[in-house]
């Protein structure tokens, strides 16, 4: 076979492979949306789930997912910001930094089920929080910290060093330079990182099964006192999220319309993740244009 022929054949094979991958994604999305969207209605999104009869919705699970997402970001964002600043501004090039970087990397590569079990052991059992939103949010924080830290570090590093020199030459300390000059400049990158991590948190289930629990008690949406057990804001109540709900109804199989409900819930989950991706792509850029008045 001459080289030209081999080149042609290889090129067409590569076209085939790339086409196949696009096809797989199209089939996945198409399947979920075509099967799921007919079940998604306002009623489906707002009514509570039913365990033994058909026609239940995912209202409480949807609320739990968003509430858990909010709490997790509230806890993990400040810590990641501090850690990201340390890694990009204060870390010296020595063995301590190497050890710290290695441990961040290890934390990010741990299977989420192990992180969930650790959260179960510490928060649910030792601290006696029980299956609760708080336990779930803390476990998800562990899961989210290394990824968010790294993306914040990267966006801080992308700011040119001349910006810092300008700050120092004005007599600002390093900390002031970071908080007044570097971080504001890096806001679009940080925002993109936060939104992408929000997508991951939203779909995570393995870390939540044994921390936030697998039950969703009825909520009273007129009661906004966080100390009340029926209040949606109470962080100590068990809270099954949308992703956990899909897993649970499929592996228990007592709900008569389990496959319809999980198709609908999957469609909602996918749409949420698509929205997060879209926001991350365009939100960061739009914000950058707005705060820097550049094109």
């Amino acid at each position, binding site marked *: 076979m001459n080289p030209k022929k081999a080149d042609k054949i290889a090129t067409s094979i590569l076209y085939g492979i790339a086409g196949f991958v696009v096809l797989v994604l199209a089939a996945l999305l198409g399947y979920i949306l075509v099967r799921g969207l007919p079940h998604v209605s306002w009623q489906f999104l707002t009514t509570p789930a039913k365990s033994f009869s058909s026609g239940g919705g995912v209202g409480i699970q949807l609320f739990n997912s968003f509430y858990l997402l909010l709490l997790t970001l509230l806890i993990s964002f400040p810590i990641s910001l501090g850690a990201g600043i340390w*890694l990009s501004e204060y870390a010296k090039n020595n063995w301590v930094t190497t050890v710290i970087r290695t441990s961040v990397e290890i934390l990010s590569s*741990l299977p989420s089920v192990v992180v969930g079990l650790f959260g179960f052991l510490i928060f649910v059992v030792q601290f006696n929080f029980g299956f609760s939103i708080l336990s779930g949010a803390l476990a998800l924080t562990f899961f989210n910290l290394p990824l968010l830290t790294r993306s914040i570090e990267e966006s801080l590093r992308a700011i040119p060093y001349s910006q810092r020199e300008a700050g120092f030459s004005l007599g600002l300390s390093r900390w002031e330079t970071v908080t007044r000059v570097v971080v504001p400049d890096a806001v679009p990158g940080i925002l993109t990182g936060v939104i992408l991590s929000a997508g991951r948190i939203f779909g995570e289930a393995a870390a939540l099964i044994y921390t936030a629990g697998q039950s969703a008690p009825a909520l009273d949406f007129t009661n906004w006192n966080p100390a009340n057990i029926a209040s949606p804001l109470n962080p100590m109540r068990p809270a099954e999220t949308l992703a956990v709900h899909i897993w649970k109804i499929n592996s228990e199989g007592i709900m008569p319309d389990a496959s319809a409900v999980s198709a609908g819930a999957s469609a909602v989950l996918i749409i949420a993740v698509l929205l997060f991706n879209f926001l991350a792509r365009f939100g960061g850029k739009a914000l950058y244009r707005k705060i820097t008045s550049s094109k």
Partner: protein
Amino acid sequence: MDPIRESLLKKSKASKLEMRGKIITYFCIGLIVAIVLAIFYFVASKGLATFFTDKVSIKDFLLGKSWNPGTLDKSGKPEVGALPMISGSFFVTFLSALIATPFAIGTAIFMVEISPNKGSRILQPVTELLVGIPSVVYGFIGLSVVVPFVRSIFGGTGFGILSGTFVLFVMILPTVTSMTVDTLKSVPRYYREASLALGATRWQTIYKVILRAATPGIMTAVVFGMARAFGEALAVQMVIGNASLMPSSLITPSSTLTSILTMGIGNTVMGSLENNALWSLALILLLMSLFFNMVVRVIGKRGALK
């Protein structure tokens, strides 16, 4: 004291602020390190209790073929052979990596070398989206598409290693692809120019120059994909059947470390042998993810592009 002397000797407001800021960041990074240490300490202390408190020998645990922690075998020892789960985990990991690697490399070459335009406009967002799809959704699709498909082609229940492999293949494909793309992009441009100037065709350049130069990076990508497959819990648990038996074929129900863990930990009592044995499985998972991490490091060190 003299006010000038005082202002010279005392810390200024700015340096106090600097100190405070430094301490905050040190605290944050210290917290992350502490979490890692705590995870290792707690999982190890729970997981090792099987061997030290319940006196199960490590050999029986790793090589035993029957998993039934509640009951005793003929010689009065508890049946905690984890080999079925360990081999199940390794099977799905290696098989899915084996299928995903050629597809990932092919897609990455297409994106970087053949059609960078379509690559960045279509395939880049496609891989990003695939990464973002939650694992339970993959599990649900596996359950409602892959399992019936395997059942109708190969017979049996449809649950098993083959279904798990298919689901994991789609899950790790985008991870491996996007990392391979980064490696291919980092191959210097003059490598390609030199090869093309010698009269090589595009495919010869790709095959004989670019892929050789990018081998360490591609290996890293594959190991990352394998680490993800090894640690994946719910998607696999939904399609593999969860029978803790030695896998006898690709289409009979079997189990992985993660699937038995997710199924079992809620049904056992803290501190009992059944529970400790499950924590030992978690410890194996932890050590394996450490191992994958080390492999990546070794490849990175030895194969850095010079």
